[in-house]
């Protein structure tokens, strides 16, 4: 007997030692999986801004702000909105470069315009306000656990009290198991004839979640109890509580599981855990027992009753007083708005993941809780996705031949928007439905660029070289029949309308996208020069040295086209594309900080000349319909349709925005419509929504560009007596030699005979 007891004792001791080893290795080695989150750029609000255009109230709601009635005491996270005045009590938020403090501000409104912003109570005028960045996604692990770690000293006392009141009122005094509770539960269950009451302490619940699989056997319960005792012996109450409050499961948000009070505070109330009120804390504590069954979204009444029960327990346990109890029970259930999809940012998230993967692998991204502050503009992304989706649907409705039953074979598209001065990606929509196809057509597809490639030919011809540029904007070029010998036989390009147009002004050749004139020009200046221009502007795809390159037969991505046109829009300075502003680790340490990079690759004068030509495309040429819905302000654009209409492109820019739209089938086939019908309306709708129809700024003329009048019929300088004239722009020193009246037609430079009067007027014009 003694020997048997001795052996049993040894076995028990061995078992306990084994459990202790598990506790130590897992508790100390345990790492909460915290997915890395991606945020947009912050919204900036300033006097003069149209608050309706940027949907300021919608932004506040998405950030978890509650609209309140006018009141003297406005808590943080609430706002009041009147017809002439709005008051917002901004919450403090962390940001890698500069944390923003809590601020109570008043906006004086005049219709949709913010006239003035003042801080309360000082009345100090503010030039700009930053709203915190919005989360647009996260990189999850296999378990898809969503978690926001929070330290126990940042957790409000009333949240801790609420949890302890309902789940483990003697937590602070028991050794890991609560014998009184076990006895009480045993009796209650005996009376009920079944399991009605649990007896697990917080420590036991933690052990169950941390270490053990969810079995319900006596052996498992015994293990759980012993491990709980071991945990309490080794670790302090604060450590245990912190682990519990960061581990506890608190419901679902779509396909992701919400773990921990930090994440729950964000999901349910749109705020940080430290900002939870008593009523909100009680609600979270209330749903621990059955987060989905007691979900306040699903059954708010039931959730409220359970919350009030928690408050009652807190009062009985003297954790709150009567006044606090009364006040908290009167608070209605007020949950955060379920954040709407910002327009399928998942293509953008994939792009970021690809960019980050060179340094941070999937395991790190899905578990280390990095915070990625991106360049994405929430509103731009939303509008881009909407414009693309609705535009494609409208096309399928108007042109039923474009529709396809199988969504995997349906018409596809891409829209990418950049800030040209900085290369920041503001919106990226790589397809019409990420759920159907995750292939990102903005960055991963290579398609024939068609006529959107043509500006590169004109840049090559307009650029100043040792002997001067090949052409000026007053030049005429030949759109007559052309035959070029190639290794595969003669190449005879044709125009879209199958007509030849004779000698045409350079402007018209691009405005009306004449193929033959452009191909002839490219052939005369040499395809290598065109390739050189394309490379400098940012095209990195393969560009074969063949005559048809001039008409866009090379396959490039919409992203490359966007960057090239951004370089033109930015006066010849090529920006490096940016998708990330800051990257921060789980402790808040900045890992990477974005720095803008750019390089001058084209002289400003040539960039301006091409911009002017592209403005002509939008005003008079193939993109003339871009203003049909009332868009006002400077627009430069180019349409593009590839061979056999397999690809429709529309590229357009304003002084502050470049956007590219591409449409096509993944397996190329003809769309049967031009890009002015297919792609242009999508671009137009997007930009109109972004700007409210009024485009800010101007395409600014560099100092070395001269503006003079020329004769439209000949391109000669129009002096007094010339029957007709139009203004035209020239690089310094490239004014036409010919003058009107009486001059020759302006062709390529070097074709004209010098006249002494021309030299005098050149000098005179420079002095003016």
């Amino acid at each position, binding site marked *: 007997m003694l020997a048997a007891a001795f052996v049993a004792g040894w076995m028990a001791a061995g078992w306990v030692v084994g459990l202790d080893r598990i506790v130590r290795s897992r508790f100390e080695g345990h790492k909460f999986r915290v997915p890395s989150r991606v945020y947009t750029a912050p919204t900036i609000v300033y006097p003069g801004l149209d608050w309706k255009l940027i949907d300021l109230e919608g932004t506040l709601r998405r950030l978890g702000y509650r609209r309140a009635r006018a009141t003297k005491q406005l808590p943080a996270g609430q706002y009041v909105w009147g017809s002439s005045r709005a008051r917002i009590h901004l919450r403090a938020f962390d940001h890698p470069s500069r944390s923003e403090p809590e601020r109570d501000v008043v906006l004086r409104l005049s219709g949709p315009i913010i006239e003035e912003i003042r801080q309360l109570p000082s009345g100090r005028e503010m030039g700009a306000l930053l709203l915190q960045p919005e989360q647009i996604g996260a990189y999850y692990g296999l378990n898809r656990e969503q978690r926001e770690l929070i330290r126990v000293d940042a957790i409000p006392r009333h949240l801790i009290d609420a949890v302890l009141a309902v789940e483990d009122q003697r937590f602070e005094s028991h050794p890991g198991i609560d014998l009184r509770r076990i006895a009480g539960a045993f009796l209650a269950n005996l009376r009920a004839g079944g399991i009605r009451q649990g007896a697990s302490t917080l420590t036991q619940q933690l052990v169950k979640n941390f270490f053990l699989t969810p079995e319900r056997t006596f052996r498992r319960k015994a293990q759980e109890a012993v491990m709980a005792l071991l945990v309490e012996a080794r670790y302090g109450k604060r450590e245990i509580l912190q682990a519990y409050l960061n581990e506890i499961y608190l419901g679902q948000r779509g396909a992701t599981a919400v773990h921990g009070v930090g994440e729950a505070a964000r999901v349910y109330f749109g705020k940080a855990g430290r900002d939870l009120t008593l009523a909100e804390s009680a609600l979270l504590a209330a749903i621990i027992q059955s987060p989905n069954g007691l979900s306040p979204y699903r059954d708010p009444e039931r959730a409220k009753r359970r919350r009030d029960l928690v408050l009652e327990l807190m009062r009985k346990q003297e954790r709150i007083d009567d006044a606090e109890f009364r006040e908290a029970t009167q608070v209605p259930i007020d949950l955060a708005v379920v954040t709407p999809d910002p327009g399928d940012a998942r293509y953008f998230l994939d792009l970021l993941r690809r960019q980050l993967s060179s340094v941070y692998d999937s395991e790190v991204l899905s578990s280390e809780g990095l915070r990625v502050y991106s360049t994405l503009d929430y509103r731009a992304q939303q509008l881009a996705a909407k414009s693309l989706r609705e535009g494609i649907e409208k096309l399928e409705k108007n042109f039923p031949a474009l529709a396809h039953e199988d969504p995997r074979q349906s018409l596809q598209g891409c829209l990418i928007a950049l800030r040209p*001065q900085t290369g920041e990606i503001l919106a990226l929509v790589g397809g019409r439905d990420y759920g159907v196809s995750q292939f990102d057509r903005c960055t991963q597809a290579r398609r024939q660029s068609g006529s959107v490639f043509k500006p590169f030919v004109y840049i090559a011809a307009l650029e100043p070289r040792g002997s001067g540029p090949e052409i000026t904007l007053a030049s005429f070029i030949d759109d007559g029949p052309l035959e070029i010998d190639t290794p595969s036989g003669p190449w005879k390009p044709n125009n879209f309308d199958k007509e030849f147009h004779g000698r045409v002004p350079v402007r018209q050749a691009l405005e009306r996208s004449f193929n033959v004139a452009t191909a002839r020009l490219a052939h005369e200046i040499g395809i290598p020069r065109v390739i050189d221009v394309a490379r400098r502007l940012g095209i990195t795809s393969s560009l074969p040295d063949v005559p048809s390159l001039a008409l866009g037969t090379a396959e490039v991505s919409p992203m490359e086209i966007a960057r090239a046109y951004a370089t033109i829009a930015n006066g010849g300075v090529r920006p490096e594309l940016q998708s990330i502003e800051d990257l921060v680790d789980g402790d808040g340490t900045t890992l990477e900080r974005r720095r803008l990079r750019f390089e001058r690759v084209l002289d400003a004068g040539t960039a301006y000349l091409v911009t002017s030509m592209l403005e002509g495309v939008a005003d008079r040429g193939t993109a003339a319909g871009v203003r049909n819905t009332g868009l006002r302000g400077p627009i430069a654009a180019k349409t593009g349709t590839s061979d056999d209409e397999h690809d429709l492109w529309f590229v357009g820019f304003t002084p502050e925005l470049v956007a590219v739209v591409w449409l096509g089938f993944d397996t190329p086939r003809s769309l049967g419509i031009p890009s002015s019908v297919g792609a242009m309306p999508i671009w137009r709708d997007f930009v109109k929504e972004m700007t409210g129809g009024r485009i800010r700024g101007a395409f600014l003329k560099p100092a070395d560009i001269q503006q003079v009048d020329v004769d439209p019929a000949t391109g000669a300088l129009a002096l007094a007596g010339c029957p007709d004239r139009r203004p035209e722009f020239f690089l310094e020193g490239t004014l036409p030699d010919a003058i009107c009246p009486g001059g020759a037609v302006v062709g390529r430079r070097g074709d004209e005979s010098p006249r002494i009067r021309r030299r005098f007027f050149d000098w005179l014009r420079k002095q003016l």
Partner: protein
Amino acid sequence: MIALGSLAIGCVGMGSLPGSDPSLRLTDLGAAGDPARRASLRLCIEGLNLDEQGRDSAALSQYQRAIQVDSTNPYAYLALARHEIDEGDPDRALAYVDQAEALLDAQGALTPGVEAHLSGLRGAALMAQGGSGALHLDRARRLDPHSWGDGHLDAAELR
């Protein structure tokens, strides 16, 4: 008459005498431009305040926000160029100077005051790269001896 007219035109074309224009201060520009430009300038000024306090990271953030509000604001790039010189990154500083100059040129805002800062910042960046920036710095000193007398532009001097 033609000769006199030409002479008059030539004198106009020469521009102001060096140093006669006041230094460029961003606070003097505060009321200029549309709301986006004004907001952007205020963010630049806040950034310069933060730079003066030694809060480099926060200052950089303000300049980036200034560009976010108005990406065509040349003074934001000027402030960034100054900041990057102080941070010891002359390559970036030069890029920002180029961007600022391109925008200032296109906006017709190349006054002697701003030319002083462009020259000075370019000179300082070139010197930091180990190159020859002396001529640029000398030009800056002549155009704006108050700001560039010591060969450096403080945040307060730009603000």
